[in-house]
């Protein structure tokens, strides 16, 4: 019951951190299994979801660090591999497909970030945590959260250059 209650809340975070639906699924299982085994360590100081969330994030980051050497990060100039901007309107029948592609490109850019940078972006921009909460979760100073987030967004800005251009063109077309 608890697994069913929390799996859908945790899945997007784990998915964005790992960049792989298969890995996210496996890590989700591992998260609940670890929660089961570490239940005695749950202090009740935070909500149960927060506790499981922390396990999930740590597992996902650990997994990414483990695979770091096997999966080289994309070069920051890799934005040119993206498709050229397309100014078709959102009402186009192909819009859902475009949206899917756009999401995939954003996910690719996220996956290209270093794990530490990706973590702060996901925790902040996807899950809406405050700097203090991120700092506590990742056990780093608040100032480090801020600087990592800034650098990560700067990298994303370069990686997502194509998408930003497309959006800019669309806005001007309107």
């Amino acid at each position: 019951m608890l697994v069913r209650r929390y799996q859908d809340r945790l899945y997007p975070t784990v998915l964005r951190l790992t960049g792989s639906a298969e890995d996210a699924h496996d890590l989700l299982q591992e998260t609940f299994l670890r929660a089961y085994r570490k239940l005695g360590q749950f202090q009740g100081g935070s909500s149960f979801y927060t506790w499981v969330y922390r396990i999930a994030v740590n597992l996902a980051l650990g997994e990414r660090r483990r695979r770091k050497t096997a999966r080289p990060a994309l070069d920051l100039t890799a934005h040119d591999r993206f498709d050229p901007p397309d100014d078709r309107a959102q009402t186009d029948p192909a819009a859902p497909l475009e949206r899917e592609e756009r999401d995939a490109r954003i996910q690719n850019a996220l996956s290209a970030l270093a794990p530490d940078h990706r973590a702060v972006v996901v925790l902040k921009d996807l899950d809406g945590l405050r700097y203090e909460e991120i700092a506590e979760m990742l056990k780093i100073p608040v100032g480090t959260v801020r600087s990592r987030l800034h650098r990560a967004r700067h990298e994303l800005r370069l990686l997502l250059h194509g998408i930003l251009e497309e959006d800019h063109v669309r806005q001007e077309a309107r």
Partner: protein
Amino acid sequence: MNLNDESFITAYLDGELDPPNRLKVEAALLADPKLAERLQELSYVRGAVSGLPRPTVPHDVSSQVLVAIDHLPEVRLRRFVRSSIRSPRRMGLAAGIAAALLVVVTIPAIRHNGNNGNELHNDDPAPVVSVLPHETNPTPPPSVPTETAPPPEVPLVAVSPKPVTTPVRSLVPSAAERREGKDREALTEVLDTPGVRRLLLYVDSLDSRTLNHVESALQKTHRTHPFRARQRVAQSIVIDPSQPNEAVVYTVVLTESERETLETNLEESLQVAPQSNDASPPELVTRLGEVGDLQVWDSPATPEPARIQASRSAPEPVAPSFGHVVDLDPGETAGSPLRVHPGTIFKGRTRKQSPTAPKPPEEKGTVYLVWVTTRPRF
């Protein structure tokens, strides 16, 4: 704030600056159009990420999690313990339960500092917490089973090579401190110790005053816990045939499913159906072996709180009423000893203590055990 550090525009974007620094950044943005442009780009990036969909998990993972849990070593150990409970050896049933519980207690392996009794480490047995009425001897009675002999195919039982009954830690050094709730504080401290999943409480008294006190301490120590949504307290009094003068009281704090399993196992072993414990806890589910009399003290002549005293007299032969469930309601049994036959199951309820009741005499040589389980309920 150093405005040369552009990370502050990220903090500004996220609303993480205090008002004075926010004003400084806004002034800088007004003065530097390029900085304002970078802020806009960062804002786009943030919007792109936050606009990503939040998909639901494509395949429910709960079944895989349950299967994985079922294969965990500790769960396999639990299964072994339960299969031990199903043993047909009726006379040793309850002692077997206790032995199994004691073994399970060793699995979390909390290391204890033998010098001061306060520090807990990871490699020693779980702490056995002694709830000792003031000025009593903390030595556990000899009837408490301390170890079990598992079959060699269950190597996990050998996790703790040390005696599982040590270390003993006194929870209640004095009656005054008990009144101040020091015991609850100590209990909370132990429960909050990382790694502690099960706990044994020893009380060398069988009077209901101590029993009620321990129950009260446990209830007041209960912490809100998503995995402990429903816990039941089952108690049993066991007299070991080999130690007929020693009564052992077990209080087992169980999840609902564990209680059902325990009742099923009791039913299989005793060939009787234990009555459902739907009333408010605590209740007594008692199995007495080769014992003589059981007295329930609760009558005008003995205005004491209800208490149960097990005493030894000549063992009775197996009676035709084997397995008969006897209600221990003091209203029906007050004043006269019950004849106890082997295999008789007693079911009753502890009574609230009368405020005018005198302090009951302490019974030596009995043990009160509490097993706190934190088994998750997925």
